[in-house]
């Protein structure tokens, strides 16, 4: 850490405002006529709302078919619906049954690690902790805002106790999203404890107690709401532009070293 006294925020803010005045921005083209032409041609050939409606229903169905890793929160639902001009359409949420994970974890499409690496727009990290090796299963899903999440599944074994009600010993899900302190507050519900910890230099949260939802911030600003898949405890942290969630029945003492061993290629 730098021990120099940091400048008052207003200095930096002033510098940023000043910087904004000297960034080279090309002259704005006159788009009036082009926009008008676009609107006239679109209005002339179709009604305005059915196409997005169909697209949205198709997208919703696709998400349902894929297992619906991401559940639409009320705000996200409204955002997407409002965006497509169909505010008012309801998306049926997955039944919140995070403690029956052995039947279905709803993790998305099965893939391989190399396949997932091609699909994801971020570097997928894998734990280097001894005894874990490569994940047994890999899944890729799409988030509500078009990003991807990747889940690494480690089956339970002699050194990896199964999370309650499942045959999964460890589940690590990576999202292209951020962890926000404000949103962590939403996790704190009845029967859920949130303890701040650290993974390297990053703040992290050890979440224990009842099954719960986590809220992550999509790079574009949307809130991704995702429920835990295992009944175990959760470790949640951010690494670069990726949020990582580790679920297991291992307890904090074993989960933290695994998280700290995560390495991207």
């Amino acid at each position, binding site marked *: 850490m730098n021990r*120099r006294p940091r400048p008052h925020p207003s200095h930096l803010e002033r510098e940023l*405002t000043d910087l904004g005045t000297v960034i080279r921005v090309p002259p*704005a083209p006159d788009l009036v006529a082009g926009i008008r032409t676009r609107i006239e041609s679109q209005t002339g050939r179709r009604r305005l709302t059915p196409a997005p409606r169909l697209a949205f229903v198709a997208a919703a169905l696709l998400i349902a078919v894929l297992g619906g890793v991401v559940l639409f929160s009320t705000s996200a639902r409204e955002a997407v619906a409002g965006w497509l001009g169909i505010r008012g359409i309801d998306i049926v949420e997955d039944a919140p049954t995070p403690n029956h994970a052995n039947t279905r974890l709803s993790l998305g499409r099965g893939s391989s690690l190399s396949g997932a690496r091609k699909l994801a727009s971020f570097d997928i990290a894998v734990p280097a902790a001894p005894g874990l090796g490569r994940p047994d299963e890999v899944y890729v899903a799409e988030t509500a805002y078009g990003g991807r999440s990747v889940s690494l599944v480690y089956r339970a074994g002699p050194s990896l106790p199964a999370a309650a009600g499942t045959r999964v010993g460890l589940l690590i899900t990576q999202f292209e999203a951020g962890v926000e302190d404000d949103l962590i507050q939403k996790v704190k519900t009845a029967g859920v404890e949130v303890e701040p910890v650290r993974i390297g230099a990053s703040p992290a949260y050890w979440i224990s107690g009842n099954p719960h939802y986590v809220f992550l911030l999509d790079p574009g600003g949307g809130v991704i709401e995702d429920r835990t898949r295992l009944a175990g405890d959760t470790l949640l942290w951010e690494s670069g532009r990726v949020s990582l969630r580790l679920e297991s029945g291992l307890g904090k003492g074993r989960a933290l070293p695994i998280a700290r061993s995560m390495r991207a290629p």
Partner: protein
Amino acid sequence: MLGECSFPNGSREPNVSRRRRGLQKQSTVGDRPLDDAELIERATEGDLHAYEGLVGSYQGIAHRTAFLLTGSSADAEDATQEAFVKAFYALPRFRPGAPFRPWLLKIVANEAISRRRAAGRTERLNLRLTEVRPSGGAVPSPEAAALRDEDRRELLAAVGRLGERDRLAITCRYWLELSEAETAEVLGCARGTVKSRLSRALSRLRAAMPAGLVDSATATGGDPG
């Protein structure tokens, strides 16, 4: 996509038949130009001429927003045009009396970010400084001016290394000089969240900057601040 879109819960369907009838050339009342609220009301009813008035007023800041978020002239132009088209169709859900600028810029930002993402661009934004320095304050010596330009480039590069959401907050608040409330609307979050996000972004920025650079940038600046 930007989340928590604050489109008001309007229920009017776009008036397609009126749109198809085309222009109603009435963007003035007598000699008085229509204000935003009147233009929006008419555009919502299908008056393309009124919408042209809105496009004319806001295309400058819309394009600037898109360029600052994409760093590409072509992407900025496409995103701006697409955003205005989408905004036209979204007008029935615009809450009458609400400020139009942040509502529009949210759509623009969304388009710009989506475009950059769809193109798979993960490299830093290619923003550059203009050669022209703004006037104001004491004229710095050539050495001081050169040092200040270097500091600015460092700061610009540091912003470029920030995550997408931090950069969006910085762009809105400092480069577009939107108010906190407007920034909140563009980002689709509460004002308190804007504050905390900006605070965090500034911390990251300070941490990412070479030691002392912000101090020296401030100290050597011609801006009396």
